[in-house]
């Protein structure tokens, strides 16, 4: 197997700064997006994901400037998500230098947006982000939540992933809401259930606290890529250390 499993640092951006919270609340400042992007690029990150968590639509355009600056200096794939509602939002992000755009809440409220966007710009640049939470104590059934985890949709996460693939999504960004910010590891059952159910790549997200968690995400969760934020932002591990740990576990990585 020659294709490398990807490590993707995730930058939550608001008001032009990178921030990080626990369980979607309690935000801490983590630095300037361009500086952080450049550092991760130098350390060997395979891609970068930016989530615009700006609450007010007045400040939406700030993310375009951030992406423009990053894309001028960092030559790896950039994914941008957060507040994407219309085909025109996607066009503006792609024009600013994003390579992929991630659609979350709007995919639920308006699934045709995914189809239209995939037709217009190609599946390769349409990521559907799924925020899922276990709805059984056995952790064997998961539902899709929207609006940053506040709204339960009643949609089964595995079925939803299959449907989004059929609508033209090129990739799934799967976040376990139960695990996000907890540092106890990915929800591996959820990750495996979704990854095995679709033909498109799945990025595992939510819960990474150490490097073994990344290894588990690939080997047990069958993820094609692993996403993490706080372990990188606060200097606990470098991207390179993460790759060396994955390589030592027998996973193919790009070094």
């Amino acid at each position, binding site marked *: 197997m020659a*294709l490398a499993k990807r490590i993707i640092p995730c930058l939550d951006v608001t008001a032009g700064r990178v921030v990080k919270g626990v369980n979607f609340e309690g935000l801490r400042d983590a630095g300037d997006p361009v500086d952080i992007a450049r550092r991760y690029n130098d350390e060997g990150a395979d891609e970068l994901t930016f989530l615009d968590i700006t609450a007010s639509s007045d400040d939406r355009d700030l993310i375009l400037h951030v992406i423009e600056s990053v*894309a001028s200096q960092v030559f790896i794939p950039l994914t941008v998500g957060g507040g994407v509602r219309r085909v025109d939002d996607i066009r503006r992000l792609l*024009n600013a230098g994003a*390579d992929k755009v991630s659609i979350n809440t709007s995919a639920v409220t308006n699934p045709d947006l995914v189809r239209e966007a995939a037709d217009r710009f*190609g599946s*390769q*640049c349409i990521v559907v982000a799924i925020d899922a939470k276990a709805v059984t104590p056995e952790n064997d059934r998961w539902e899709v939540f929207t609006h940053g985890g506040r709204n339960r949709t009643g949609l089964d996460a595995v079925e939803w992933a299959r449907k989004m693939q059929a609508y033209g999504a*090129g*990739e799934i960004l799967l976040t376990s809401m139960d695990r996000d910010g907890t540092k106890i590891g990915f929800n591996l059952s959820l990750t495996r259930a979704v990854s095995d159910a679709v*033909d498109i790549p799945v990025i595992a997200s939510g819960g990474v606290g150490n490097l073994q968690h990344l290894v588990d995400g690939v080997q047990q969760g069958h993820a094609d890529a692993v996403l993490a934020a706080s372990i990188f932002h606060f200097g606990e591990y470098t991207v390179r250390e993460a790759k060396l740990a994955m390589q030592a576990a027998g996973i193919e990585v790009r070094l």
Partner: protein
Amino acid sequence: MKVAVIDYGMGNLHSVLKSIEAVNDAGAEVVLTSDPDVVIRADKVVFPGQGAMPDCMRELNAHGLAEAVRESAAQKPFFGICVGAQLLLEHSEEGDTPGLGLFRGEVKRFARGLTDAQGERLKVPHMGWNRVFQTQAHPLFAGVDDGERFYFVHSYYFAPAEAGLSLADSEYPERFSCIIGRDNVFATQFHTEKSHRAGLQLMKNFLAWDGTV
């Protein structure tokens, strides 16, 4: 020297342009253009492309650029990227689309249900960093290691009808051609503009290239 990056509405042009500017030590004039005359007058041409091949071919024709691309590829240093590379072949399985036919061969879809030697399932699109094995010597490979990783995102791949057209292979899980070219034309399936140092090195070599092999 003038480098034309062809804009027909189907590429991540910002990234392509910025990646060329990042290695433009010689101070070439780099222009983004939809004007066939500008393309024809340029010294070098970069031909990006993203999305579905039928859309790319339609937009290329709608912009009146197909002939300028053919003409440029026939005579000056020419760099195709992704769908911009696929378009150089005769035909694509994607939407049963005729290409520009500069090179004999077609563009095929990866089969469904692929697995690697360990039985692990391979997803399509083929997305991420994969190794590029150089199968012919080429001036653009200067400073690029054989087996270096580049960033791919595609569901369709080159199947050139003449072995000599393929300059490099990758594996997924079978070997497939990921760079095609002849004489002054060099075209990659992967995205040089998203392949970090190795991608920038290829583009830097292109800016210095006189189009001979």
